[in-house]
């Protein structure tokens, strides 16, 4: 999943060369940065309220300033929500999982976005590789090359993954997936079994790669100074232009705004004939309210499926015209064996059965979604999908 921003459009668009060229160009043409104005005595950074901690430490009076609101949290409630795991292993539940099991579970639950070898698909994050690239121009930051603590990976997989179906994995499955990610990064061997007992023995390659924010010493002392106002540099040259890269989105809204007719039609006076006719035609299709509800339900599917204009296959197939279509027949999508070989069509009934229990209906499907629990939701999403030819 991509919680990461791919911050360099050139990469995604295959215009790395352009970006590099432009930067090289820039480097050659920088006319020497103007000397910093004389650094005056640095103004002391503001003291951040350490008095607050002292004051809070001092006020120990029980019930002091309390409002008596809220209620005590129950142990079961705390256990249900307090799942975080710290670098020293605090919070890890008992359990274990092997690389071997992890490979299978990863393939079923994670590979659609992260790739079979944790190498990442499309813009989704790669989880393996990148060793020794952190000082390069385009560092590859993965669990192996960058993450300092294994607890972070376990905690994150446990609470936030699989994307769009979070908190559905068992503890042992999480151990197995994390073991497989470690294996993909050559940190452990293929016969490794990760457990709460050997968890802290795993050495993360970049554990010592972090320093605590040092801007106060390395930057603020330099930049807290009286700035130059006149004759600050001898020459100024443009060294790079954004338009060269051509990665700025077009502004559709601007078109709408400036091309909208200037005359506002006041209310709906007369001539409703055409509109009424349209409304009648529309009534023959699915119930608009149901379709609208289905569009909302489809939010659960969007991470993997596209539908509508320009829809393309992603982790899941594009879904235009899916209602009524042959099962496992969307062009260019690589289906699981089960769906590829399944006979029949996506009739509303078949679709409903599949959506209620994907893996029960099609054992081995790559769709990691757990299924829609409500029949209303299933009917709604089915109606919504039926509106796309």
């Amino acid at each position, binding site marked *: 999943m991509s919680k990461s921003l791919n911050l360099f459009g050139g990469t995604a668009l295959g215009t790395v060369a352009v970006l590099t060229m432009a930067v090289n160009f820039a480097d050659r043409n920088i006319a020497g940065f103007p000397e910093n104005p004389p650094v005056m005595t640095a103004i002391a950074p*503001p003291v951040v309220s350490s008095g607050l901690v002292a004051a809070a430490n001092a006020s120990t009076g029980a019930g002091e300033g309390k409002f008596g609101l809220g209620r005590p949290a129950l142990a079961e409630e705390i256990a249900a929500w307090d799942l975080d795991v710290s*670098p020293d292993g605090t919070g890890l539940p008992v359990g274990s999982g092997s690389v071997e099991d992890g490979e299978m579970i990863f393939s079923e639950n994670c590979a659609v976005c992260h790739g079979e070898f944790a190498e990442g698909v499309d813009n989704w994050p790669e989880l393996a590789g990148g060793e020794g690239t952190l000082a390069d121009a385009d560092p590859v930051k993965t669990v192996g090359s960058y993450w300092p603590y294994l607890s972070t990976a376990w905690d994150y997989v446990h609470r936030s993954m699989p994307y769009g179906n979070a908190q559905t994995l068992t503890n042992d499955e999480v151990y197995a997936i994390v073991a497989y990610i470690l294996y993909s990064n050559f940190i452990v061997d293929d016969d490794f079994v990760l457990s709460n007992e050997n968890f802290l023995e795993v050495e993360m390659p970049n554990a010592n790669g972090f320093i605590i924010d040092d801007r106060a010493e390395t930057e603020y002392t330099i930049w807290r100074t009286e700035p130059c106002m*006149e004759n600050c540099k001898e020459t100024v*040259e443009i060294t790079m*232009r954004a338009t060269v890269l051509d990665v700025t989105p077009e502004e559709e809204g601007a078109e709408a705004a400036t091309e909208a007719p200037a005359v506002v039609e*006041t209310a709906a006076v007369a001539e409703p004939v055409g509109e009424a006719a349209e409304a009648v035609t529309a009534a023959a299709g699915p119930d608009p309210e149901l379709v609208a509800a289905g569009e909302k339900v489809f939010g659960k599917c969007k991470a993997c499926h596209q539908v509508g204009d320009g829809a393309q296959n992603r982790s899941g197939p594009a879904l235009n015209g899916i209602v009524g279509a042959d099962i496992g027949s969307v062009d260019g999508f690589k289906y699981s064996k089960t769906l590829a070989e399944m006979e029949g069509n996506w009739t509303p009934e078949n679709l409903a059965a599949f959506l209620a229990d994907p893996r029960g209906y099609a054992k081995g499907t790559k769709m990691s979604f757990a299924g829609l629990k409500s029949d209303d939701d299933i009917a709604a999403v089915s109606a919504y999908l039926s509106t796309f030819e």
Partner: protein
Amino acid sequence: MSDMLKPSRRAFLRASAAAAAGLTAAGAARANGPDPLITEVQDWATVFGDGVDATPYGLPIQYESDVVRRNVEWLTADTTSSINFTPIHALDGTITPQGCAFERHHSGAIELRKEDYRLMINGLVDTPLVFTYADLERFPRENHVYFCECAANTGMEWAGAQLNGAQFTHGMIHNMEYTGVSLRTLLNEAGLGAAGDLADKWVYVEGADASSNGRSIPMDKALDDVLVAFKANGEALRKEHGYPVRLVVPGWEGNMWVKWLRRIEVMPNAVESREETSKYTDTLADGTSRKWTWVMDAKSVVTSPSPQAPITHGAGPLVITGLAWSGHGAITRVDVSKDGGKTWETARLAKPGEKMALTRFYLDTEWNGEDMLLQSRAMDETGYVQPTKAQLREVRGENSIYHNNCIQTWHVKPNGEAENVEVS
């Protein structure tokens, strides 16, 4: 490729054609006789407009439909884990309307009813507590205006000028008036006696959505100005900003402003969650990375003229305007340069800077159609001066993503069009 500026260029050309036709609207009247918009009775002066209740919750008039958030699709794999941008080039003043304030989700914007909302405080507290939304409304409330800036704002510009518009280079920011309860009040309600010495303690905050986004905040900050907020600009938070309750962490990176806040845990250590290790850390040229870089340093940008807001009125009086802010406190001064940083003049602040809030600046000037390399440079109450990109690169190299607070340059051309450029 060459069509990149197409829409805004078209808009620009239309506007300048209109301007060229009669120099200015006022000029047109003088040159071509009386202005029919004045001499002829217009429809709107004759018949009714909309009655009340035409739109029980009002939206901007159709003519403003271009003032919307925009996404840069290639940045992310999916909109449920993505960001869009505030149209700062088209706004004025300092308060960002909620409807166009940027969104950043890690697993989509969820719908959580107030009735289903629970907030837990646990960990090293005397009594772990659960609050309902109604409980929160019974604590003393505070009102504060703060900016919220994503740490990645301007992150796409590290390696060079890339996105052509202030919305895209600087639009991961908004500024709202929040109503909420001080986190200090809630921590006190649970009791911090069990935490012992507070100096080395942390507060871990976590959201209710599927991303389970969680961040560690040092106790010192937690007891200072952090707010558990449920209103923004006077009304309920929007779904996309964490309805019904979000955390407000003044001056610190937006990722810590946890939305759909569901849990606050007092801890002996930082959790070192995904968003404070693998993301939101700053890799330096030698490959080591800074962590816990929470504060957003002083920064500013000219919002108009800018690539999406070209000059369409020709030579004469020109208002140059923009925004400035600092996570260290109030903005005290903004300087503007028209020549790429050779000379600077001090802009007028619309009102005195407020701590950790956006400040609007204006330079009321004359423009004679000459090329301009427009820059702005903010100073805050600690004496910090916004650095150039070169200064930042000198310290950090070019591998950084987050915390790019460099001085921005717009090249304004004689025809009034503007472009994002980098200068020597």
